[in-house]
């Protein structure tokens, strides 16, 4: 019997409890309280709560418990990255950003990059939120400072700038996306050190951007609708030709985040993760195996297939 500790009983936590048996029938889930004593016999701990994860993750790591965190707050992720030495000393993996984004996006980026000889650009777009904590985090992200990696150096731009129209998988479709204070570029840069440009954007409407500097004017929904991610990887193939590969997912954000957390929890239980900090997209991970687990949990992975037309080729030879 495997014991999975779970912190957070919101939308993602609830989805983890319901979907974990699809890939780990013998698992027993115990709810962890971030402030109480860590029970013995926990094989892996999944932190799926709102708020900061670093402090609780540090306690779990010190107790020798592998940790899977769905943290998406930039400062929280930076604090978690600082726990690398402690996780290595305790010989346990600490998975940072095991939700939809960061998380699933990193795995998709690695899968696409594996089809290229060199990968120099990664661009992420996100649409939708899971529970209320996720919606509040996105609201905060739209008023912060967005980080990105551009031509070999880190840049900071005001959140809400840099509009780009992103086409997500159906039924979500096209949405205007903007820079936001997201953790994905920081994690992706560590996982893909050869890249020259990394960006992450989130969909927002005029009201979202206009009210980003205010507290949330109305309480968020219990759960957002169908969300989506879109990962675009650019690079060159073996022949030196430029290629752009796009993959994505359209799914309830809570389900996609839960599936990713479950995949990493299963990998941790099977001792497939190296000690220390683990990022979705790391070269040493069994990316295909993790994506396969995510698909088994019920998330449909999609890719965009562009068909070159004669008129476009003649216009851009």
């Amino acid at each position, binding site marked *: 019997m495997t014991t999975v500790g779970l912190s957070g009983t919101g939308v993602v936590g609830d989805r983890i409890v319901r979907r974990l048996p699809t890939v780990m029938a013998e698992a027993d889930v115990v709810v962890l309280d971030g402030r109480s004593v860590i029970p013995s016999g926990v094989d892996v701990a999944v932190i799926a709560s709102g708020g900061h994860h670093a402090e609780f993750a540090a306690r779990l790591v010190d107790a020798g418990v592998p940790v899977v965190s769905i943290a998406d707050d930039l400062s929280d992720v930076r604090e978690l990255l600082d726990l690398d030495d402690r996780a290595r000393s305790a010989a346990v993996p600490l998975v940072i950003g095991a939700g939809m984004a960061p998380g699933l996006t990193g795995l998709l980026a690695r*899968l696409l990059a594996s089809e290229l000889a060199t990968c120099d650009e990664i661009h992420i777009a996100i649409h939708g939120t899971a529970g209320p904590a996720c919606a509040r985090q996105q609201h905060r992200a739209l008023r912060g400072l967005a980080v990105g990696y551009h031509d070999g150096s880190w840049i900071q731009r005001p959140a809400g700038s840099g509009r780009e*129209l992103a*086409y997500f*998988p*159906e039924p979500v479709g*096209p949405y*205007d996306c903007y820079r936001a204070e997201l953790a994905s570029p920081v994690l992706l840069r560590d996982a893909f050190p050869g890249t020259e440009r990394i960006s992450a954007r989130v969909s927002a409407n005029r009201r979202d951007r206009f009210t980003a500097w205010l507290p949330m004017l109305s309480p968020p929904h219990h759960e957002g609708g169908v969300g989506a991610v879109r990962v675009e990887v650019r690079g060159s193939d073996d022949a030196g030709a430029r290629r752009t590969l796009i*993959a*994505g997912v359209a799914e309830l954000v809570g389900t996609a985040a839960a599936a990713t957390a479950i995949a990493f929890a299963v990998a941790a239980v099977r001792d497939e993760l190296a000690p220390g900090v683990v990022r979705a997209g790391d070269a040493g991970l*069994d990316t*295909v*195996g993790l*994506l*396969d687990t995510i*698909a088994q949990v019920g998330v*449909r*992975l*999609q*890719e*965009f*297939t*562009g*068909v*070159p*037309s004669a008129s*476009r080729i003649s216009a851009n030879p």
Partner: protein
Amino acid sequence: MKFLRRALSAIFMMGLVATVLRVRGTGGTPPQHGGWRALELPEDR
């Protein structure tokens, strides 16, 4: 008076055009070729 009437008419027409573009506009050109399909994971790891 004539000038004022023309200016008001111009502002009204501008507003009308902006409203039509905002309501009916698509905000970009959708992809003309290709589409989304299920991603098949490679067999060999």
